[in-house]
């Protein structure tokens, strides 16, 4: 379970560039729930993920992941609770390391790392099996450097990396945005499969309203650092992209000027 309690995030406090990124966001996500997060640019989507991941320490409020208060913990200190896939395929893995070395690195996320060889025969076999499940043929390229892979392949491997070690929450930060449509669909279906098979608690930020409604159990919309919409269950099942747009207009009382929200 994850819980955000009245989170305020103010960047550059006390300077002329002061910006209120989150304004009292409260959110409770039950275990095993897949939440999709939408909102226009600057709405605070990435900041919410940052607060959960530890990249952003909130100005006030409380962050609970699992049963732990992690409000003041940095990224590395809470990595055992949080798995992530980044928007930029290059950000989530090490290009200079091989596929299997990246997996070995991820398999010990949040654990202590000793002097034992990172890649024993048993681990190699396990990694190979997990990569073979992707059906991308990468199981025969385990010793290739990660930077030889395409963006889509890297995201697919990143998804596997995110699930090698246990976690309380999986954060997906527009992880299909940098891919071509075919690969984006493949990664989305893979995400769906992994999240439902492993009953993961997941938060996915997306720019696509279509994606936000097609996947997951619950959708929240952020605007100007606040949660303006939170739908789940039956009311979400009947919801269409057009309804979402209408709702957005009603709530904000303004026209929608962000084309990106309409795409997909």
């Amino acid at each position: 379970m994850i819980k955000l309690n009245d989170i305020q995030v103010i960047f550059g406090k006390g300077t002329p560039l002061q910006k209120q990124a989150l304004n009292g966001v409260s959110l409770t996500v039950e275990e095993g729930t897949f939440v999709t997060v939408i909102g226009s640019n600057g709405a605070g989507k990435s900041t919410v993920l940052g607060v959960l991941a530890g990249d952003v320490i909130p100005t006030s409020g409380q962050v609970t992941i699992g049963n732990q208060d992690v409000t003041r913990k940095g990224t590395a200190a809470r990595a055992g609770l949080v798995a992530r896939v980044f928007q930029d395929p290059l950000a989530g893995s090490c290009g200079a390391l091989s596929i299997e070395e990246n997996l070995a690195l991820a398999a010990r996320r949040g654990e202590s790392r000793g002097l034992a060889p990172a890649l024993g025969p048993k681990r190699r076999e396990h990694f190979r099996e997990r990569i073979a499940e992707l059906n991308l043929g990468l199981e025969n390229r385990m010793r290739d450097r990660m930077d030889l892979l395409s963006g889509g392949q890297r995201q697919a491997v990143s998804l596997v990396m995110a699930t090698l070690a246990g976690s309380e929450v999986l954060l997906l930060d527009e992880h299909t945005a940098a891919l071509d449509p075919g690969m984006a669909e493949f990664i989305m279906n893979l995400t769906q499969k992994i999240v439902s098979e492993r009953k993961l608690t997941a938060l996915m930020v997306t720019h696509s309203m279509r994606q936000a409604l097609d996947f997951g159990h619950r959708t929240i919309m952020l605007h100007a650092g606040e949660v303006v919409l939170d739908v789940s269950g039956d009311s979400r099942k009947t919801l269409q992209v057009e309804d979402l747009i209408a709702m957005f207009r009603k709530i904000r009382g303004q026209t929608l000027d962000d084309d990106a929200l309409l795409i997909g």
Partner: protein
Amino acid sequence: MSQIAFWGAVELGLVYAFVALGVFLAFRVLDFPDLTVDGSFPLGAAVTAVLIIAGVNPWLASGVAMVAGAAAGIVTAILNVRFRILNLLASILTMIALFSVNLRVMGKPNVALINADTMLSPFFGLGLRDFYVRPLFIGLLVVVAVIAVWRFLESDAGLAMRATGANARMARAQGVDTSRQIYLGMALSNALVALGGALFAQTNGFADVTSGVGTIVVGLAAVIIGETLLGARGILIALIGCVLGSILYRIAIQLALSTDMLGLQASDLNLVTAALVTFALVLPRLRRGGAA
């Protein structure tokens, strides 16, 4: 080039192989341009020389030198990580400070070790001529160091260090404390360099406060020559490249200096070094240009 001169070059190359391994850890693994080595190399030499003269076992003295080198590396890491001083500048500050430290350690600019017992003393007079014994002994130590660094870099802990240098954000997301990795890496790197200094003092019979000048360039030259020759084919090959590069560099310098035709003399060493490093840096680029 005489046989003695050749094996002398190999010996010096092997001594500086420790510098090359240290520079590889800092520059290539951690992506940390570290000039501390110009100070930690003579620091290793100074500590070893002073301790040996004081009657300390030379193995223990060399161990203490490594600890001193590690401490120097940690100082640079603290300046960079804790006080957020630019990495290059942080290392220059430590390097400058070490010049004074080294003078304090030795009490004078130069300490001779001529008749003192060194790590190598027990192996002289066993039938092999001295100019074979030295490279053989140091070569064995280099093999041990290469295997140790290789095993480390392919362990879970080593992967964390490599990830810190390659993609710090990703490393943190995987739970790697990147600051700690920089402390650890700089300590390891400078411990290796100080061991090089310790061996330099013991094979050459002296420690000199100025012997550190240009250490970084020599180490970098070795790393780059190794990369140019062997290419990027995994950690072990890269480490072997460092050693090979260091030896070849010394042989090249020896050749340049002993060829009367070129009219070079010992004082031209730094110019020749700079030319050689530039050549090694430009060569891969020329190759790529030729292929395209």
